[in-house]
């Protein structure tokens, strides 16, 4: 069923350890500051959830950003109306995203393939436009929803004296920015990973895979696949809602651009880049894209000059000129190139790269038949 290298227990343990120790092993890469670590964990959750739909059933949704946005808005409203505690915010975020996913899923899942993708895209774009202009009183339009000193915060008002300046989000007193915010997200990521692991290994997961390989055949055996599809859609929508609410927990602001189609496209990229249908792939993809967005975009010509200072001056200038196109404002270009390379040479994503590497190292004479057949399937 999967690589012999790991059984599920060691996989889960390694994963949990790697996530919790990120501040240490990411330090040499310049990525161990709290905000980026939080983004890794949050978008990891988003991608895991997306993978439950796309990876298992093969249904390509272009509308998951809508759930991310709804999660954020719900969380910020929870901060504004009730309390700065993170728990209700997360619950509200997941709940409202789940409700929206139920509605959109119920309507979109009447179609499959490209029609399903277009439907989800249309619904997401509708949600975006609603958030952007129609529902401005609720969403504050393009400016984004922010906390203000005048917010009622009914529950907090009963227990805590109002201080000067804006209150900060917290988990029973632990502030939710900085490293503690990251650990909160990380623990949720690990829980989500565990849930995803269990779904992958469950009969329900097998049913979803069945839908991916041949939905017609499933229907002909007399099985109604719609409830399974809808369940998968809602679960992945709730994951997205959780990610959205965590974005608001670590930084209490919600903007309509979170719901834009580019955000939906981003999670598709993350999943494909990492490896569709694999457990760990989407998280790798999410980390890679966020790393590019935050670190590569910050490289400027000065940093490049420092980096290439070992070269002779004229050569250095040329090299800096050329590489300068790919960093800073050009980080999209680098990401695009990487994406093309991965899709062409490693259709199974980064995970396939690792698997090939592992096979190469272990010098197996006979390729593992089951794993390669699964690999091909996941590369669809």
């Amino acid at each position, binding site marked *: 069923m999967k690589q012999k290298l790991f059984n599920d*227990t060691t996989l889960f343990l390694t994963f949990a350890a790697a996530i919790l120790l990120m501040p240490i092993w990411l330090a040499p890469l310049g990525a161990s500051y709290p*905000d980026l670590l939080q983004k890794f964990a949050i978008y990891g959750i988003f991608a895991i959830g997306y993978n439950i739909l796309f990876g298992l059933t093969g249904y390509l949704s272009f509308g998951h950003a809508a759930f991310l946005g709804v999660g954020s808005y719900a969380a910020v409203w929870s901060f504004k109306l009730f309390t700065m505690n993170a728990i209700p915010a997360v619950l509200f975020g997941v709940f409202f995203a789940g409700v929206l996913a139920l509605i959109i899923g119920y309507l979109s899942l009447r179609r499959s393939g490209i029609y399903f993708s277009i439907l989800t895209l249309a619904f997401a774009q509708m949600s975006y436009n609603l958030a952007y202009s129609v529902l401005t009183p609720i969403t504050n339009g393009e400016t984004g929803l922010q906390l203000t*000193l005048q917010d009622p915060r009914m529950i907090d008002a009963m227990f805590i004296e109002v201080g000067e300046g804006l209150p900060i989000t917290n988990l029973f007193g632990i502030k939710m920015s900085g*490293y503690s915010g990251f650990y909160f997200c990380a623990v949720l990521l690990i829980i989500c990973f565990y849930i995803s692991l269990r779904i992958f*290994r469950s*009969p329900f997961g097998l049913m979803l895979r069945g839908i991916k390989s041949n939905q017609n055949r499933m229907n002909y055996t007399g099985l109604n696949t719609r409830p399974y599809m809808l369940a998968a859609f809602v679960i992945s929508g709730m994951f997205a809602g959780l990610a959205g609410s965590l974005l608001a927990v670590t930084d209490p*602001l919600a903007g309509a651009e*979170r719901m834009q189609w580019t955000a939906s496209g981003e999670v598709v990229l993350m999943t494909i880049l990492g490896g569709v249908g694999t457990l760990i792939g989407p998280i790798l993809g999410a980390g890679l894209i966020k790393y590019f967005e935050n670190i590569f975009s910050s490289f400027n010509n000065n940093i490049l000059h420092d980096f290439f200072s070992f070269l002779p001056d004229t050569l250095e200038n040329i090299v800096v000129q050329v590489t300068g196109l790919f960093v800073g404002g050009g980080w999209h270009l680098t990401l695009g190139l990487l994406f093309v390379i991965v899709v062409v040479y490693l259709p199974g994503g980064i995970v396939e790269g690792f698997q090939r590497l592992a096979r190469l190292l272990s010098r197996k004479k006979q390729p593992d038949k089951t794993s390669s057949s699964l690999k091909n399937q996941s590369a669809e």
Partner: protein
Amino acid sequence: MSNSNKFSRRQALKFGAAGAAAMGAGPLIFTRNAWAQAFPNDPGSNANVILGFNVPQTGPYSDEGADELRAYMLAVKHLNGEGDGGMMNTFTPSSLKGNGILGKKVTYTTGDTQTKSDAARASAKRMIEKDGALMITGGSSSGVAVAVQGLCQEAGIIFMAGLTHSNDTTGKDKKRYGFRHFFNAYMSGAALGPVLEKEYGTERRAYHLTADYTWGWTQEESMRQFTEGMGWQTAAAVKTPVGAGDFSQYITPVLNSGADVLVLNHYGKDMINSLTQSIQFGLRDKQVNGKNFEIVVPLFSRLMAQGAGENIKGILGSTNWNWSLQDAGSQAFVKSFGAEYGFPPSMAAHTCYVQTLLYANACEMTGTFYPPEVIKALEGFSFDGMGNGKTEYRAEDHQCFKDVLVVRGNENPSSQFDLLEVVETTPRSQVEYDAKIFGGELGPYKV
């Protein structure tokens, strides 16, 4: 599917406990040093100070962002005593010495705001948390400015806003740690109103197309306030999404609305597109209500004029600064910028350059980087020689007050940069307002 790999309940509990322990211990290890500092990103005994330049490098305002970045790099040079010093020579009263800030060499880190609040905040956070930036500056959108300003207030890092024109930035969303040198929509309206009255009379019907975010809203509000105050009617006000690209669906209804003035509350590439399309639709050749149809662009910049080409000829607008100004400060800046990059600076570049110098100067004045003291030095600070004449940072809302330029697209440009002619310099007294009218609170000095 074998079940042999499944977790037993006992195992799950064990991992849960281990995870919880790791989570509890983690923060102790990684945040131990956080409280040793008196204020965030104190440069202490470092030889360098780091400033964060957060500008749009992609998206509809990327032209402005690129020019802002050029100005910042020039300002850093001048602060470090390299180059010809630019406006440092004309700036009074100045405490700048040309040896960095408080003897520390100025270095910088850059980031891409993408003109999105989320990306801008992520980028600013990176600067604060990873690079140790002492001050964040930049941005070419009010939405971004408001978002980053809020973040900086929470983080206790001073934010010197770049190009942001919304009333909200120093109005209802003002912050103790945020400062704006640029003028705002209210001032544009106050300066443009009398000129519009003189040029187009008091009996006009205006149609507004408005960028749908904080800047557009306040820009429209201020323009309506002043034009309606002098007797104009407003036929309609339509909101358009930022970065729409194609505005034809919004421009067609203008023709049948009975309006004889179109007010484009757009900026950057949006303004270039909407103006170009309006001209292509033949709006300016029309006669409505027996009058020539006119177009007004309340916020004008040379970069936009360059993008719109021929179409800007004769169109009225307001601007914070223009490179053709003849005062010593402007000339020194244009000369220095031109020598470095080969073309004159935009108003976005100007405001960003000035903001950087003002921050450095405030640090020199107080002799410390401690933000509450620097803020107090900036509040109420009056200066001259920075291209806008006498200017004051009002203490109540951190808004700079200075003269406003009303400009018109040049009919006969003498060069590819000579695109705007100054119609009138509206004195500061005419654009001033009570700090209370927009509400909002600055918040605490210490966070």
